[in-house]
Every structure is written in C-alpha cells, then in structure tokens.
C-alpha cells in the first residue's frame, strides 16, 4: 500500500470479522461511506445464523 493512499497516516480501510447479518451490514455501511472493507468469513458463504432461519416475525417473512 503506497503512502499516498493514506490521509494523515490514517488508513481508509476496515476489517470486518464475521459475515453474518451484522458483519454484512457493517461492511455495506462502511463501503457506502467511502471506506475499503475486508470482510472475513470462515465459512464458504456469508449469511451466518440468519440464513439458516426459515421465517422472521412479526411479518413471517422468509429470512433469506
């Protein structure tokens, strides 16, 4: 990483550890506000616990 890619020695990148619903949301918000994100997930897909749920209340919508 070149020095020029930083402002005042601050690095405009964030590491997010865990690709469940919280990690995904944090990563999206950071990327959408101008920061580079490394999203780390130990499994082969993101989604975490929520991806295993069938439906969510109170609307009984599909959790997927």
């Amino acid at each position, binding site marked *: 990483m070149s020095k020029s890619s930083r402002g005042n020695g601050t690095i405009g990148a964030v590491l997010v550890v865990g690709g469940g619903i*919280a*990690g995904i949301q944090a990563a999206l918000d950071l990327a959408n506000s*101008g920061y580079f994100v490394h999203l780390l997930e130990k499994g082969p897909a993101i989604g975490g616990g929520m991806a295993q749920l069938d439906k969510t209340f109170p609307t009984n919508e599909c959790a997927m």
Partner: protein
Amino acid sequence: MVIDAYNAGLGERKAIYKYYAQAIPSAYAIDSDNCRQLGQGKKCGICAKVCPTGAIDYKQKEQMLDLEVGAVILSTGFHAFDPGRFDTYNYAGLPNVVTAMEFERLLSAGGPTSGHLMRPSELSLKADLAAAEKGLSKLHKQLKQLEGKYGKTTGEMYDTFQSAGKDDKDLRRWETLAEQATELENRLRDLKAKQETAHEPKKIAWLQCVGSREINQCDNGYCSGVCCMYAIKEAVIAKEHAKDGLEAAIFFMDMRTYGKEFEQYYNRAQESGIRFVRSRIHTVESVPENDNLRLGYVTESGDMVSEDFDMVVLSVGLESSPEMQDLAAALGIELDHYNFAATSSFAPVATSRPGVFVCGVLQGPKDIPLSVMEASAAAGAAASNLSSARHTLVKEKTFPEERDVRAEPPRIGVFVCNCGVNISSVVRVKEVVEYAKSLPNVVYVQENLFSCSQDAQDKLVEVIKEQDLNRVVVAACSPRTHEPLFQETLRNSALNKYLYEQANIRDQCSWVHAGDPDAATEKAKDLVRMSVSRAALIEPLPMPSVPVTASALIVGGGVAGMVSALTLAKQGFKSTIVEQKDRLGGHALKLKKTWKGEDVSEFLGKLVEEVKAEANIDVLLNAEIKDTSGFVGNFKTTVSSNGTESLKEIEHGVTILATGAHSIAPQEYFYGKSERVFRWHELDEAWDSDLVKNASSAVFIQCVGSREPQRPHCSKICCTFSVQKAVELKERNPDMDVYILYRDIRTYGEREDLYKEARRRGVIFVRFDTDHKPVVEQVEGGLQVTVIDHILRRPITLKADFATLASAIETRDIAGLAQQFKVPVSQDNFFLEVHMKLRPVDFATDGVFVCGLAHYPKPIDESIAQAQAAAARAATILAQKSIEVEGVVSTVDETLCRGCGKCVEVCPYGAPQLVEVAQDVHVSRIQEALCKGCGACAVACPTGAAAIRHFNDREVLTMVEAALCE
C-alpha cells in the same frame, strides 16, 4: 456423504458443495477434510474432470494475508447452546427432541423435508426402507445361487452346514449371507412397524430457557433474549404447515416479548390457540412404542401432570463461541463474566481497545434488529476516526460515454444460457437458440455455458461492439439476481443500462418443469419471444444525478439526537439539532444510572458540553418544525426557534427523527392523589426524602398502562428499572420489605443478573394477571396493596410506605411530524421503519432515519447504538457528492394532465405534486428522486398523462401479446 451443518445436521451433503441454494458467493467449495483427493490422500479428481469451466484447482493452499486497516469490527456472532450437555432433556438419545435451529430447518422449504412437517425419527424412514429391501433382495439372490449350485432348499442347506460344512468355503459363505439376511429381515420388520405408526407431528412442545437463565447445569445465568419470540414464531409457522391441525404448547418461565410489535404477535399466537404453560420442564422421557416424548410438569395450581408429545423443541440459548475467547485474547479486548465483549452503556459498540469495535451477539445476547443497529453503529464509530482517509482506498467506477441509439432501429442480441447443466439438462437450449434467430429485430444469437462468468461478460462487450447491438436479451436466470451485472456490462459497452431485458428460463422453466423437457423448452421459447418483443420497445432512460447537501437535520436534542449529531460531526458532517425544549438532554435528564450502574448525569453533562463545543453542530432550542419539503440529498426545512417569529430555512441532505418518548401519568393506583405514589424518576427525586429513607416497605407495580388492550405494547425498560431500584432499596436497608408486583419479569439479556441479585437479596416477586390487578388503598400511615397471589391463589394484603408505578412509555404528538416528513407511524404510535428486521433505522422515504425512543422504548445503551446507526446510515448518503436517480420513474405529459390529483392520492411516496402553471390551471409534476417506479399513478390517471418509464402500457402489453400469439 457429509453431515450438513447448514441444515443443523439433519441432512447430508457432498464434500464439494454450495453452502445453501441462495449462498453468496454463489459458488461451490470443497470441504477438504471430507474430500478424498485433498483430505484423505486417495485418488479421485472426479469434480475436476466434470467441471466444464476448469474451476477446480486442488493446489490452492491456505495463505497468510497482512492487511493494513484503520479499524476492526468484530461480528463473529453466536454459538447455539448444545443441549447434549444435559441428560435431562435426552437430546442426544431421542431423535424427536430437536433444537430450535433444527426445527427451523424442518420448517424451511429449502430444508431436508422441503418444509413438510416431519419428525426426525421418520425423516429417513423411506430411504432406510428402500435400502433394506434392496439389500435383502440382493442377499436372497446370492443365497438362491448357492442353494441352486447344490440343488438344495434352504432347510437342507442348513442341515448340511450344521452336520459337516463348517470347513467348506461355499457353505461358510452361505452361512454369512444367511445371517446377514436374517439381520436385514429383522430390521425391515422394525422399519415397517415404524412406518405403521409414522405420522405428521400433531402435538409439539417447546421448552424455553434451555441453556439460558440456568446456573445449576451450566453457567449461563443470563437470558438469551430471543428464544421466547422465536419459539412463538416457530409454533405459529408450524401450525400453518400442519395439514390436519397441530397442538402447540410453549413451556416457559416468563414470556419475554419485549420488542417492537412482539407483544401483539404473542397476543395473536394465544388467540390462534397456541398453549402457553408457565412451567419449567426438567425431564423428557421416551415413549418407545411410538417415538413420542413424555413430559412431566407441575401446573400453576400445583398439580403434577404427565403429557405426551410427538416432538419436543428445545429453545436453546445463545452463547459466546469458544473461538471468540481466543480471538479476544489475540486482539487484547476484554470480555465480561459471560464471555461477551465488555462494553460501556455509553459506548455500546466500542471494546476496551481503541479502534476495535463489536456488534451483534458477541457483545451480548440480542435479536436481529439490534444486531443490525449495532452493525451500523460500529460502522459509524469506526468511521468517526477515519474520515481524513475517506475515499482514499475506494475507486469510483467510470463508464464510457453512452451511445445515443434512439434514432436507430432495434438491433437485438439474444444470449441463451446453459447455466452449466441447470438449464440445459431440461431445456433444449440449441432449439431455443435457433428459435431466437427467427424472431423479428434479432440480429445476433449466442449460446453461453455460463453467461454470468467474467469471460462471458468480456465477450459480451466485444459482441455488442462488433454486431452493433443496441438491445440485449439474456435468457438465463432471474433478473432479480443478475440484471445489475448485465446492466453494468451494457454500460461498459457504451449502452444505456435500460436497453437490457432478461428472460428467466431457469427459475421458471428448467427448475420447475424438470419432468417435462418439451413443455419447458416451449415455455423457454415463449419467454424469449416475450422478452424480444419488449426489447424492441424499451428505450434508453436518463439517470439524472442530483447534488447532495452534506448536512443533517436532527429533530430532538435528547441523548439519541446528540449522539447522532456527534457521530456525524466526527465524520466531518454538519448538523442542526432542533430541540423543542429550552435545553438539551431530553428524558435522560431524569435518569440516574444505567442498568450496569454507570452514572447517567455525568455522561449527559459531558455529552451536552461536547455538542455545544462542536463546530459542526448547530443547536436550535425552543424550536419547532414549521414546514419541510424536498427529497434525499436536498431537503429544505423551515424552523422557528427561541420563541421569535423569525423563521429559519435549513437545507439538509438527510433528516434524523429522534423525538423520544415519555412515561404516561397513570389514572389509577392513587397516582397524583397520594404523595406516596411515584412513577419512575419520581422515586429517584424522592430518594433522600424521609418518606423513602425511613420506609420499611415498598411496592413496585409493573405494566401500569402497558400490555393492556388500549396500549398493547410492552414498555421494555420497566422491569429492569424496578428490579434495579428494588436492589438499591435493599442495599440501603436490608430489612426493608420490597415487593414487585409483575406479570412477566422481562430482564432480558444480561440484565437477568439484576433479577437474580434482587431475589438473592430477598425482594419478593408476586405475579398478577390483568383480570386481578392489584388494588391500592390509602390507609392510616401508608398504603395498603391487595393482590391475588398466583401460588396461594388468594388475596394477600401488603402494607407499603410508598408505591412506584412503572407506567407505560409512549410518544407524544408525533402524527404531525410524521405527516410533515411523510413517514409512517405504527399502531402503537411509534415511528415505523421500513423493515423491522433488516432496516431498523431507515424509513421508506430515502434520506430520513429514526433513532431513540421515538422508534420504541429502549434503554440508553440501545438508544446510543441506534443513534450511531442512524448517523452511519445517514453518512452513506452524505459521503456522496451526488446521487444518481433511478431511470424507472413516472412522467406526466402536461398537455394531457387536467390536474385532477388522482396520482397524488395514490402515490405512497409523495412523488407527484400539483403545480399551478397558470391561474387555476394545475398540472401534476413528478419529483423523480421520490418516485420508486411502482406505476400506481399511471394506472390511476384518467387521461393517460401519467406514465411509467420502462413499464409503459406498450412495453408491458407487448409481452401479453407475445405470450398469447403462438
């Protein structure tokens, strides 16, 4: 086959697999431990041989990466409690005792039973039966052969073997086979017997607090905070799934439905016939003859009951994972006594180490909405320190200038995808390709193995140029997942992205008509014909970009408003706080301590000073919103302040509503009529008075005005408050009699520690129900409270020096604000976000956000997290110089418009506006940034003046015509 972790161990998968059908990335992975080639050192390589794109690379190795980052966010989630550790529930031994996660998979259409309600004991019955029958017939055949060789019957063979055949090779083989056959016959008989009694479960029990609120068998003293709601949800959904009715019973200690709309969901569940039994179950026994389960429990009236269920679901709690402890040690962050990340109520997503933030369950047990809020909060907090490096590492995408194709006749290219074998195994793709060539305006047709692969995209750019295409139709999968990808490729080819059309011949043909290749192929041709006819009509659409005013308007100067302003200020964005009162602070001014015991007034004092000193924040006191207009990035709001008539006009890119809530003044229990009856903070104010200091007994009454027909919601924070105050009273005077009269104690999450502490200190908890509410009377020298004790089932009378009422929390006068900002309000009068689970701080109106108690009653730590979240969400807009407006918006032909206002009436987003163009002549104009492209206005318009781009009448009707023309 490998146990499928995604299906909570209820299904199987192969060593090369996709984690789940909708997995992102949508790619297969090799599980090296179970792979013959990689993990077991055997020769295999089949997947490499069959992979048509050569994507398999066995040589990939684990790599160490060094990343330089400005902040770290931990969101490692939870570990579901393993009930196998308890022998009481017999989870390990009985197949029909399942965890809630397993039950989720059993309900899911994508799960091991395709969503059919089935018991695990019968899950594999069919397959087991088939396997046993097949094995047996094979054995019989082999036995027949041997017997045929000797020309003997089975009986004769047996005699031969018995007498002399023990050394004979053939006869020994006959013996082995015969033994195996007998064994299989027995198994088959058992399986058949099982099949006789097999049935869809008719009666299911949920057992709450498995691995939560439990310190005897495990150390999880906390409440997991989510299980009550998920159990109710599972029971509701299971009842929907059950064809012939289902009896559902939930065994619980306290029903903790404390979140937004939760109590209403609980009420509906009770009305739908789900049985709620207040009892903690300690043993699950097997009923061997039918794989049922027998629960023994004590009812509230003290009777011992034994009841059989077809299935038992264990509502397992959430735990910090063991890996988390290693990670915390590696990163040097502190954990609390339950191994969740230690945070302060005032900085709920900051760990003990600067620059490292947390969100989700690893910070403490919590549900999805709060996890998502914390995630945005962590993003906001992380970004607060990094704003000087914003945009330094991200690249903005640029596209070549668009070619103007409006004058050209359509030149359509059709790309038909095989999707590997997903489409081609059913649909005859070549036939579809030939057919597409015959369609009008089609100048080029190509077949792709995978249209979405990178090389196919590169090829598409080339072909568009070579063939001079000006419309592209891809016949492949769903536009919902892949349209953006192809549209981007069009933009890379200098074409407007709206010149694209997709026919879904996978999800609508090959995958759903797998048994009928002819019909699937015909349907694919029809879909391609429909798309081609539409493609000929679609037009390039402008995507105007509008500049963003990089500042926020924050309505409400309480903790939530101030925290969101500061979070934005630290990222370099200006904001204006509009506060109705003459000072900042809101209701936190009345709070003394957080539930963790931190000093609120000290924090609040610092917060107010920080806000006042912050150059990026402008505070308007005694202020009122007069009017607001505009859309995301470009709002304009008129505010009056400090009682002056002069109005201030504020331009802002986003709006955050943080108007808070307040506790009601009860009309019951002598409130306002006796100086001995307090509500909430009034107890704190009177804390050092003689009345409170010298009191020998105190009563707290919960749910005053909450969870009642006129106000069904739970006010969420009252149980924790009263329990904490009760502990403080006991600390000051251990001899004092302190009673809490409650309906359910809802000290959710780690707040359960307070409840435990209260009981340890001898606080007496008496439960009542709404039919028998406590009665307060004024008597000589104090109060007399009568309540029907739920155990003794007769009235008990308590003498109290004072009573504290946990009165309901509700918003005040938000209807006007809601109307001004065009945002909805829920039935219980809180602001209603766009999606309760996944977008907990966003409104459907872009650029408007909510936080704090105006969203729902919540403790200060959750308010702060939500305020940081609202700021982070707002920053995603403020960080952009301009916003691109979608092209699929409505238009009004002003020459046809007669200004009737029908479009204004039907638009849910307030996009059309009537404008006076001459005296008494009105026309409708669309504010494109507000339009979501639903097209309701086009349908409502009586003159045809309103139309929706990309879906105008011709563009839709041509598909109807093409579908039916044959």
